[in-house]
């Protein structure tokens, strides 16, 4: 959006009554929330449902995919590979641009806790 258009919208908003400004603010907040959720791959379901579906998938499939990266769309596997790039590219080929990317580990794997 151009600066000019944004300034024009602000000027128009200044002419609104307090009640109308409040309605506009609520509308913009709702739109922002939807946009952020979409960016985080939280589309469609509620945030809680999406996260629960991801965790359920990880708990059920960690041993099978241990050592790999997976791309999840909610509780659905849309990509898997040895690298994050492989998993991400598979997801994108399936039309999922914002998948949840996770490096999966086995229950028996000892992970590095840091230096």
């Amino acid at each position: 959006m151009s600066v000019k258009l944004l300034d024009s919208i602000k000027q128009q908003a200044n002419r609104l009554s307090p009640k109308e400004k409040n309605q506009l603010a609520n509308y913009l907040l709702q739109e922002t929330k939807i946009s952020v959720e979409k960016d985080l791959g939280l589309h469609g379901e509620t945030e809680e449902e999406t996260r629960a579906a991801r965790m359920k998938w990880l708990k059920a499939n960690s041993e099978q995919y241990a050592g790999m990266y997976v791309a999840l769309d909610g509780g659905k596997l849309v990509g898997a590979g040895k690298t994050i790039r492989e998993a991400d590219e598979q997801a994108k080929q399936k039309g999922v641009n914002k998948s949840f990317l996770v490096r999966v580990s086995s229950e028996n794997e000892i992970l590095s806790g840091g230096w």
Partner: protein
Amino acid sequence: MYKLNFEKLLAYNTGKVGIELDVTLKLKDKSVNFTAKVDTGAAHCIFERRFGEDLELEIENGIARKFSTATGTFSAYGHNLTIVTEGLEFDSYIFFYADENHKTNVLGRFGWLDRIILGLVDYEGKIYLNYYDEK
């Protein structure tokens, strides 16, 4: 010559032992703020248990994993939440220590470093950050 572009340039305190960044974790309408050290040797982001509890997570409901360090091993539980570091926000798979006495907070490789581009000039105390975007 190689060139990378960064959206964020931050100064950090070179007088401290680690390179610390501001972190926010978000879950539903709750958030918690603290600092964590960049640690390329850590497999995942691992944070204090109390931060997960502040977000009303049932820590033990996460995915249990064992981690090792030079001084021993510890258990932690993985959860899905949103992490924000210096304005860079994404959903990730984050671990919380099982032991409430474990106080080291680290930003590790899987789930953080693999999502960003990181530039470091330690001599000047400068850290450059950007989302990884292949475009």
